[in-house]
């Protein structure tokens, strides 16, 4: 399987529960593969461990049980071959937006001229032209998140991990950025794992939708979405196959989760 880029293999994660000596089991035996150039969407209830999974792929957290394999090697330390867009934007507050986006290029020793060009392109792509000199605390929440996305896309990593990337964006902006992401992946062959709460988004973008259950979280389903690409992000419901795929995910998601949970 030369195509298998990233593999989550029986991942389990326990966290200490404050106040008690016991642990809370958060993830319980999650296994799925991500093939090269594919989109994988991860959905699941709030607090089920989606962000935790992404952190493991980035090597920021070693699972209590199981392991993440990247190109066959077990991830045991910081994984610098992935790009990571965290749930909170996490821009560097002491750098302007442009400096923030430039940083990974600087780390990679890209020449100054090219850096400037790529930063301008990346900021343009997320609609932040004109805000280069703003510090993060001068940007709105959605703008910060877009900045964080630009900071990752600018260095074109092979694997992109995105934690609810478009959650803080309005419908219009979101559609444009979804479309851009699809183009990027198709042209550059980037592999994307992204967490989302929006089932429409998951079905629209993904080749596979991974559905997680309530804590302790197990893999409910790994649903392949066989819609042709490029897909139209602006009018998803025009495509009759879309509805079917949406329903498949929604049924899976909804059926096994206790509606009355929060009461």
């Amino acid at each position, binding site marked *: 399987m030369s195509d298998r880029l990233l593999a989550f293999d029986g991942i389990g994660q326990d966290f200490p529960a404050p106040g008690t000596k016991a642990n809370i089991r958060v993830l319980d035996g999650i296994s799925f593969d991500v093939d090269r150039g594919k989109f994988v969407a991860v959905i699941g209830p709030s607090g089920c461990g989606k962000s935790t999974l992404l*952190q493991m792929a980035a090597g920021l957290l*070693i699972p209590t049980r199981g392991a993440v394999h990247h190109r066959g090697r077990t991830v045991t330390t*910081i994984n610098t071959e992935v790009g990571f867009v965290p749930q909170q934007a996490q821009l560097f507050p002491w750098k302007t937006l442009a400096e923030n986006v430039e940083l990974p290029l600087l780390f990679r020793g890209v020449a100054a001229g090219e850096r400037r060009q790529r930063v301008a392109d990346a900021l343009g792509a997320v609609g932040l032209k004109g805000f280069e000199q703003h510090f993060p605390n001068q940007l709105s929440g959605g703008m910060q998140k877009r900045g964080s996305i630009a900071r990752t896309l600018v260095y074109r990593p092979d694997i992109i991990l995105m934690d609810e990337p478009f959650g803080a964006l309005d419908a219009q902006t979101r559609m444009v950025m979804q479309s851009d992401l699809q183009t990027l992946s198709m042209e550059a062959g980037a592999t994307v794992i992204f967490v989302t709460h929006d089932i429409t988004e998951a079905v629209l973008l993904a080749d596979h939708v991974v559905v997680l259950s309530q804590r302790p979280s197990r893999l409910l389903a790994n649903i392949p979405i066989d819609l042709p690409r490029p897909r139209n992000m602006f009018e998803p419901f025009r495509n009759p196959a879309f509805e079917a795929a949406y329903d498949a995910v929604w049924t899976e998601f909804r059926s096994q989760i206790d509606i009355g949970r929060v009461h």
Partner: protein
Amino acid sequence: MTESKPMTEMTYDATDGGTAPRRSISARAAKPLQWLLKLLPGIALLLFWQWASGRLIREIYVSKPTAVAARLYELFASGEIYPHLWTTGQELVLGYVIGVAGGVLGGYALGRSPQLARIFEPYVMAFYGIPKIALAPLFIIWFGIGMGSKIALASIMVFFLVFYNVFAGVRSVDRELVNLTLVMGANQRQLTYHVFLPAAAPFVMLGMRLAIPYSVIGVIVGEFTSSAQGLGLFIHEASSTYDPAGVFAGIVILLAFVGTANLLAGRLERRLLRWRSLSGSGPIDI
């Protein structure tokens, strides 16, 4: 805020290897080893001191560990040291407490009010910069030659350190959080207690720690200037009566003071900043 989990500690520090589960096992087994590691530099130092004394440098200037230990035993056995201890202990505690209290109040007031800060901060810095030993006669006139002048000196030293730390800490508090708290209906007292103090705690604790040795320095400088009793006097007398072991015995006792206070402060700090350690970035531990 949920991005980091305890185990990231491993990845965070480049010089630190090993995976997390392995580490937690070794951590338990390594408790005595940890202690050994901690003590090792100290033991090496003592051995070197013992060896060097009389070889590299005359014993009259540095004494030697065995002589210091013997002198310490003698001082406690004969009870000679207790009055000195008692005096200096009182001076230290009072000087420290007064200085910390003043520093916290002053730093908080100026930290909260940019107006006042703009006016008074330069003066505080100026007073802080005055070399107090140049004013020894003045201190004697104002505070006498008893405990008063030492307490004054120590609390001034402590005050400045705590003042500046609290000042900087209060100014670094996230205003959004403050505003949110005000919207929730907090009054000034509640704001102070629930937001400013905890948020500034890392700075406040740092100030309190820095101030520990300075309270000692303040008291000792004070006793070196004038005194009838106290460890500073004891050290000074030992040094002028050709008793180097006495000098170092006095220093060892002072270090015991500092060490104990630092230990207590470390405890307090770990307690107050427990929430920080949970996200991985631990507080200073002793």
